[in-house]
């Protein structure tokens, strides 16, 4: 090893908590990756804590400081300060890489005692080969230094079918990360994605977005409720697509209210919501045989109508046609095939973005529920008929995931399609990509099922603890590391990566600048 590249030397500690002395003049950071060269292999280690060390006792140092501060002696300093005072870094082994075949193993031994360490270099990361059909998430990061030559690619089918969790607080770059991932997904038709875009931020309706991907025309579908930009689709779902079970786990209906809904469905089938909204609640109540039952039915009917009206923003025009104010739901002939079209697109490996920014929380989840239910069923059918292997993996990208997979939701209501997918979707190649600020309110069983976590910065200790407890690698020493993650910095923990990888996610704008479409010039022949 070149002496100039040495940054420290192993001086003690135990497995998982090795102490090194930092070489004077170097500046180790939390999260820095370093290498300990050994026979035929090398260890990759990471700094998780830094502290001062000194050959002089504490009291003596304090006294010297007193001399400096109180006696006014200006130039009092240590004799050979670099030798006497230094920095101790606590590091943990992440991986052992065998040079012969670039095989990466979980380390089970300590580095050689007194071995000199250097910072990681691009050549040490040759094992990070891009596999076929993988998704780009960023570059390896050592502390705050980015190794641009070491790109991190995740195997798409494995990662998405085993669910992805993106825990982050606001402003840490989760939108940028999701856009980066989807940009890579758009390269091929190997991943189908349904993106419930509550902030209308991914497509790039008015600025830079996924629409600028060179394959956006073929692989990206954008549905928006009104005034779609040129080439985009109108998000209209016909009320006929909604069935009573789609409300389960999403909307709080009491048992009698649900019974009234099921009754309406049995009576009118396809047009049950329209008919229910046009039913006179008082007359419906009077039809009941006993008076008390009638009063109850009237009240129930009125509550159901009110809830549906609010949930779906339904109104009735003077001709008795039911319509929704935000134009997403239609009771006539529009949007009859929207759900099927979207499912078909996902099955073809396209990314479908639904602009749900004009919908309320529950309406957004309901629309997602209708599509996800059909999608999961189709994939189940494909598995039954032996055709699942030919389908692309499907993922449903959902923000504020605890709305549907939070402890309180799952204990107070029935399971919904999102929790079903989280629990059993893996068998059918359907997964969730859940984004959340609050991982701690997601049940441990579901968190443990999310086998890839891309952890962005989080200042809340409780949230960090929940993430660390459910990580695929041991992150017990990484609490401070996670807390100190800057915008765009992340740690990937996954059963599909050899160790918890510190990464830097590139700015989406830079990706677009480098790889986005360039405007065509020249004439087009029109017949």
């Amino acid at each position: 090893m070149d002496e100039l590249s040495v940054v420290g030397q192993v001086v003690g500690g135990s497995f998982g908590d090795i102490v090194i002395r930092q070489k004077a003049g170097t500046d180790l950071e939390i999260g820095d990756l370093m290498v300990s060269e050994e026979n035929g292999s090398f260890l990759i280690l990471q700094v998780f804590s830094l502290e001062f060390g000194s050959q002089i006792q504490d009291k003596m140092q304090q006294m010297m400081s007193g001399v400096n501060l109180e006696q006014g002696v200006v130039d009092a300093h240590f004799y050979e300060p670099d030798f006497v005072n230094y920095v101790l870094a606590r590091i943990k082994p992440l991986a052992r890489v065998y040079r012969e075949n670039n095989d990466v193993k979980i380390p089970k031994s300590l580095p050689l005692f007194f071995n000199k360490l250097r910072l990681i270099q691009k050549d040490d990361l040759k094992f990070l080969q891009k596999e076929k059909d993988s998704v780009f998430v960023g570059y390896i990061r050592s502390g705050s230094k980015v190794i641009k030559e070491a790109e991190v690619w995740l195997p798409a089918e494995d990662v998405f079918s085993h669910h992805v969790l993106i825990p982050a607080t606001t402003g840490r770059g989760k939108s940028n990360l999701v856009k980066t991932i989807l940009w890579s997904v758009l390269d091929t038709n190997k991943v189908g994605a349904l993106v419930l875009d509550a902030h209308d931020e991914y497509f790039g309706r008015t600025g830079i977005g996924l629409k600028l991907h060179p394959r956006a025309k073929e692989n990206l579908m954008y549905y928006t409720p009104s005034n779609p930009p040129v080439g985009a689709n109108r998000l209209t779902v016909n009320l006929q697509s909604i069935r009573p079970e789609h409300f389960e786990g999403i909307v709080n209906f009491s048992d009698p209210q649900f019974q009234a809904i099921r009754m309406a469905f049995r009576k009118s089938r396809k047009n049950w919501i329209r008919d229910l909204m046009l039913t006179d609640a008082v007359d419906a109540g009077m039809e009941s045989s006993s008076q008390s039952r009638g009063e109850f039915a009237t009240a129930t009917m009125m509550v159901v109508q009110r809830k549906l009206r609010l949930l779906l923003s339904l109104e009735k025009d003077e001709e008795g046609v039911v319509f929704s104010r935000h134009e997403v739901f239609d009771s006539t002939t529009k949007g009859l095939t929207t759900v099927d079209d979207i499912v078909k697109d996902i099955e073809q490996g396209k990314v479908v973005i639904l602009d749900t920014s004009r919908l309320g929380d529950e309406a957004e989840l309901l629309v997602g529920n209708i599509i996800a239910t059909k999608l999961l069923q189709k994939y189940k059918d494909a598995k039954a008929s032996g055709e699942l292997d030919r389908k692309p993996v499907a993922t449903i990208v959902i923000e504020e995931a605890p709305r549907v997979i939070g402890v309180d939701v799952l204990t107070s209501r029935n399971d919904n399609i999102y929790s079903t997918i989280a629990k059993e979707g893996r068998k059918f190649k359907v997964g969730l990509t859940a984004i959340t600020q609050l991982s701690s309110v997601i049940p441990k069983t579901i968190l443990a099922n999310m086998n890839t976590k891309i952890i962005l910065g989080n200042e809340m200790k409780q949230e960090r603890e929940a993430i660390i407890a459910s990580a695929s690698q041991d992150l017990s020493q990484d609490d401070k590391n996670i807390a100190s993650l800057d915008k765009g910095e992340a740690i990937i923990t996954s059963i599909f990566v050899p160790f918890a990888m510190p990464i830097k996610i590139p700015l989406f704008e830079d990706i677009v600048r480098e790889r986005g479409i360039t405007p065509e010039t020249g004439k087009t022949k029109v017949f």
Partner: protein
Amino acid sequence: MLFAHLSDVHLGFQKHESLQKIEQQVFEKCLDECITRKVDFILIPGDLFHVNIPEMRVQKFAFAKFRQVYDAGIPIYVVYGSHDFSPVANSVIDLLAEIGYITKVTRATSHENNTISLECIVDEKTRVKITGLSGLKVGKDREWYEKLDRDSLEAESGFKIFLFHGGILDMKTDTGMDGDQMPLSLLPKGFSYYAGGHMHKFNHQSFDGYSNVVYPGTPFAGYHADLEDNANGQKRGFVLVEFEDVVKSVKFVEIENTLYEIIKVDANNRKAESINQELLEKTRDIDPTNKVVIITVKGEMATGKTADVDISTIRDELNSRNAMVVNVSKNGLTSKEYSITEAKGNNKEEIETNVFSENIGQLRFDYPELLSEQGIKLAKKLLSELGQPVLINERKNEYIPRIRDNALAILGLDDAS
């Protein structure tokens, strides 16, 4: 003021003589109706003919009828459809336009900045402004819409009509429809009427910024599935639009074509013998005399081959009882023992797309345009062109270069010979 809107006539599609007669009669009835009702003009947004150069029989009666309409002083405005379009511009549409019986409304200019501007033509009598774009197979025309200078079109004042030929996703009512559809947002906004072709069922809807988007549907049949729809009660005809400054009414005018009988058999989890038995019984229950009889057998058989379902006996039986035509659809019939799932689809185009989609992944070429979605589109286009029949009186040494030139044009190659 009044105009008529018909589309997807697909003249020349029918192969059976009896159906050819109906095809002709329906077309003539539509135009007779336009003359009788004294419409100010007629719009035909594509697929007037089933192929770009139909057989002489078809051309003969079509020219005769268009002559009558011309003599009645009724202008006809058209765009190419995906069927009667030719990449080397040798469609019978061009011939009709050349002699002045019809007017092609696409007046497009391509600019160096890769945009396309359209100019409206003005109907002399009504001063209505009309423009539009042709439809190409497998949605190739989408590129034109993406490059369209829509601002200038949207700024045009007065009553204006846009002709287009293509499916609109926002108006889909049936999941089994052909997949080459585009979002409504590709059309320029603010026209008074959008005259659509390509979708074979009547559909009239309005959207924010797009009032009166209308498909009259085919007046008879342009796909085999249309006959089945007819047998199921689908009304056929064209559209009459009354207007002044704005559209006052859009009325569907039904044109009756012929009588139908339909026999449907669910083959799910059944053996061929039981299916054959049901077919025979159902055949005995109908009166097929002078009717088009549609037989559909769908589902997955429990055992045996799909060929074990004996259609020929049924066909003979119906023909002996003077059925006009017997059409059999076994597209949806599969067997657990012998199933080609790769070829499923609701119509010819969808089946072709599915077959290509299923198989293209096995190919390895250095040319990306031959692979994936692009490859499928190219293959479909090529297949369609190579399937063009020899025209009546067309000699082999005329037919071969015609097909070769068209095929090379599709492939974007020059003829090295």
